């Protein structure tokens, strides 16, 4: 009896989580999947009809914004990593007593809502604003050129908005590195550069993998940045789905696109984890244990 009970305990502990997943993931998924195979219009009513062509139609019509989303999100993730890694490194190893203050500074913008932060960029990047006129005088932006309502503005906005998602996990894994490991490398005559490439970077990979996933996944579906900082030529798949759902009220097409988006992200993430190695995501302890 007690043996059996012990075997069942994990399932009970999983219970709330599973219930949550069923209620807020599996059930909505089922209805979304069903909806994506409907035909009809709002006026005539939608009917379930195994309409697989919804997927093909939606994809062929909105191929460009679909690919664009992956391009923007990918670019933003890479830039966030290039900015975020040195930042996290500096906080973790050189922060000293300012460590907490610096972490707070990374998170502080999050105390304001996402929307307000994005709209603030409209003012910062305004055609006659300080940033654009400076860049124009340096020659990076053509005279009479602009940043707002271009791809650069959208990618910059996404990078800015998701930067903390990159910095925090990278910081957490850098922070956990035992400094004696790096000392040991140096004792074995590794130059600081070799010590970084052979010891620090591999040990911080779990943070890098977590950070890139946390940045990339929400960035692909983002539509706020494209809406405020982009023009219609910079719209992402999120904008398309919103338009399909709220303006055109083509619910089946919107559901089909959402499904494809989810599937593609899932495949990309699985491939990425496989490539990076699962210990990179979980941390060595988890795999060893």
């Amino acid at each position, binding site marked *: 009896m007690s043996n*059996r*009970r012990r075997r*069942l305990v994990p399932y*009970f502990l999983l*219970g709330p989580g599973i*219930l949550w997943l*069923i*209620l807020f993931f599996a*059930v*909505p998924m089922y*209805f979304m999947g069903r*909806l994506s195979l409907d035909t*009809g*219009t*709002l*006026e*005539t*009513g*939608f009917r379930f009809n195994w309409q697989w062509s919804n997927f093909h139609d939606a994809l062929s*019509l*909105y191929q*460009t*914004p679909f690919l*664009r989303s992956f391009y923007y999100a990918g670019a933003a993730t890479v830039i966030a990593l290039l900015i975020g890694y040195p930042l996290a490194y500096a906080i973790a190893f050189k922060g000293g007593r300012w460590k907490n203050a610096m972490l707070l500074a990374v998170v502080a913008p999050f105390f304001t809502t996402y929307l307000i932060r994005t709209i603030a960029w*409209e*003012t910062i990047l*305004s*055609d*006659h*604003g300080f940033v654009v006129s400076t860049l124009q005088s340096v020659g990076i932006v053509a005279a009479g050129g*602009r940043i*707002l*309502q271009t791809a650069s503005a959208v990618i910059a906005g996404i990078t800015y908005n998701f930067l903390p998602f990159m910095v925090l996990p990278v910081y957490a894994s850098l922070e956990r590195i035992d400094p004696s490991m790096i000392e040991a490398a140096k004792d074995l005559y590794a130059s600081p550069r070799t010590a970084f490439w052979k010891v620090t970077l591999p040990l911080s990979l779990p943070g890098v993998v977590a950070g890139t996933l946390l940045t990339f996944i929400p960035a692909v579906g983002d539509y706020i940045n494209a809406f405020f900082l*982009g*023009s*219609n*030529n*910079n*719209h992402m798949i999120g*904008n*398309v789905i919103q*338009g*399909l*759902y*709220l*303006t*055109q*009220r*083509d*619910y089946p097409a919107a559901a089909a696109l959402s499904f494809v988006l989810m599937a593609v992200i899932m495949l990309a993430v699985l491939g990425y984890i496989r490539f990076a190695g699962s210990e990179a995501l979980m941390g060595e302890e988890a795999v060893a244990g």
Partner: protein
Amino acid sequence: MLKGLRGVALAALILAVSVGIAACGGGGIGGGASEKVATVKVDPKPSGNMTISNWPLYIDKNTVPDFEKATGVSVKYIEDVNDNAEFFGKMQPLLAQGQSGGRSLIVVTDWMANKMHQLGYVQDLDKSAIPNVEKNLVPALQHPTFDPNRDFSVPWQSGMTGLIVREDLAPDVHSICDLFNPKYKGKVEMLTEMRDTVPLVMKCMGVDLSKATEQDWLNAIAKIKSAADSGQIRRFTGNDYARDLTSGDVDAVIGWSGDAVQLQADNPNIKFVMPKEGCMLWSDNMEIPVGAPNPTAAEAWMNYVYDPKNQAQIAAYNNYVTPVAGVKQVFEKTDPATAKNPLIFPSSKFTANCDTAPTLSGQEEQKVTAAFDAVING
């Protein structure tokens, strides 16, 4: 003990799933076009509570409290309509089940008012309770094509869609066609509201709107698309063109007359320009949705705001075109400058070339909307 626990967990799971299924599956989506439109039942004396859904910045601070004092009705006034299509997208699942989400009265633009009526989502009005509307509605708005006898819709405010221009930056923009001039590349914007933008471009192309075909709509959309692809049009906006005009990021936009009056008050360089081709005329209409609680109070509200004195208070605030006759006379006494403003009291000469948006049949609408949405969503 163990068995009991497991039982409870299983029961909770089954309950949760079935609640989920019931919540999502009930009623289905769409349909309802064949339902018969009912006429509201009005009690002799208004009382109780009522919720009104309207667009933001469309009413002054005093009208609601004054109405409450005059009638004893307690009003919850919410500004949750930002876009016809989006508001409809939000309301539709409720309306399809005969509910209004507690709203007694909603305000939507002509074409949406028509669409909701066709779908059986609004009720006919009891005209005996709104004598002020019968008496004071301006003649030009008494017989719109979508509701020739004003059976289910009463205008809240009207307005014009035309050009709003920074005169210091673009002194020679006088027509919609000027927006396509390469001189203003990246410095012009158009509205995401399809029924404003596309008909104005059709006018630029010389189309007679009363005879516009589906192909005319699609041709205009193609013209807009090529301008958007080439970067001529900076972006498509709602009211947010106000920011871009103020900052000088754009020179000229397609915009709404009431906004122009408000923007001009802050920056005298911003002007409403009546396009050479004419403008679009529209009204936002009060409607009583199906399942609306307390229609008596809703009709009392309609009647109240159609008293010229009460209407003047609203019109003085929002700067749109009032649908109530007699308001100009009130302003002539209290605020002669407003009484002379052609954007608030346009003469028939001023709006001579203006049209209301042509209606689209269901099939046409779907095709045209999809084409336009493909443009504004790149």
